[in-house]
């Protein structure tokens, strides 16, 4: 960490709340040595620092020169509203879907809407069927001083049921059925 910045030099000592320099939360190598391996905290040490935790005796494949190991994931947007949506029906003629939107932030009543299918990315088009669940994020991004408002629509994907899971459902159902008794018929 370098202790030089105009911020740190220009502030009045009496109103000095935070240090104004050197906070690279993702890249602060000093923090690596004190991090516990059992931590489930934010992956601050995303990248090269984590690789340093691998025991020395293990052989680590050297990353190619083009791989940027020391980058943090680019989290740069402010969420304005999040909705969970359910597709009610799809109108392919007009290229729209009618949906029910449930706000995930704040006290906003549920409402229905019509969304053009152009907002659905190609890889999700086959998921657009009645009953499908999606997420709609309205967000704000600040880039080079200008503010950009936009929205992102992403369909929920869940893995198919495994044979073991299906067997367990049948097994649970059998157990429940075994405990059931027919109610006596009222006279």
């Amino acid at each position: 960490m370098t202790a030089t910045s105009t911020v740190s030099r220009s502030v009045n000592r009496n109103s000095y709340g935070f240090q104004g320099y050197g906070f690279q939360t993702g890249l602060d190598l000093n923090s690596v040595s004190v991090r516990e391996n059992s931590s489930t905290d934010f992956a601050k040490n995303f990248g090269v620092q984590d690789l340093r935790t691998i025991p020395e005796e293990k052989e680590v494949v050297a990353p190619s020169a083009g791989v940027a190991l020391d980058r943090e994931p680019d989290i740069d947007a402010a969420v304005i509203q999040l909705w969970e949506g359910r597709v009610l029906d799809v109108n392919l003629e007009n290229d729209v879907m009618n949906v029910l939107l449930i706000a995930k932030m704040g006290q906003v009543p549920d409402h229905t809407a019509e969304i053009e299918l152009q907002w659905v990315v190609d890889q999700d088009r086959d998921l657009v069927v009645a009953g499908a669940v999606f997420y709609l994020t309205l967000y704000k991004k600040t880039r080079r001083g200008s503010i950009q408002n936009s929205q992102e629509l992403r369909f929920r994907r869940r893995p198919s049921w495994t044979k073991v899971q299906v067997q367990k459902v049948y097994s649970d159902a059998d157990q429940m059925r075994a405990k059931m008794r027919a109610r006596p018929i009222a006279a």
Partner: protein
Amino acid sequence: MTRTADIFGSSVVAVGAFNPAIFSPDWLERNKLIGKGDADGATKSSAIIISHQATVFETEWFALQVLENQFSLTSKGALTPAIKDLAVGIFSLVPHTPITALGLNFLAHFKFGAEAEYHKIGDVLAPKTIWDGLYPEGRSAGMQVLSIRIQDADRGSDLRTGNEKRISIQPSDKVRFGVLMLLNDHREIRGSADGIFPADQAASIVDSDWQSSCDDAIRVFDYVVSNALAARD
């Protein structure tokens, strides 16, 4: 939230013993957890590593890093609850993985209109009365990072569980005169409790608690920032 974060993100981190090599974009696509576009984009990117020791790659909306002892799925760009579904899906596919702890993490950067507000947050949360006396001439004390643990017990009593929340605040490295707040909702996973495998337990926790944890993070961040700014000088 009376104060809206300028940047908001989330990650799901699990501690355990993993086999990094299996967590490839291709594997996620084959199991229908991501689309072809995401898989192709990640595979063609130069920033991809898949090896026995580490898997690291990114798509437009998430970054995945799996080491032998840690799994980390982090949102990118605008946060979407699809990240929760992806974590649930991945854990469901590897139910026998011995996961010992799970973290639902949220971060927010708050930008302040004036430098004075930024310093007020630090001064209210970490008063400098003692520290300024150490080096009274020509030096200044500043808060670097403050972490608070909220444990599952009254003070002095035995912990009911190992679950806890860790809240941290520090200067933002992304917005000028801003602060970064982090909330780590840490959960312990018991080995095969009630016949449920550890990774299935992790999947169940993420599925049922991610949204409430997210709501709590928004509440906590707003509460701390708003109360610090409202405090008397």
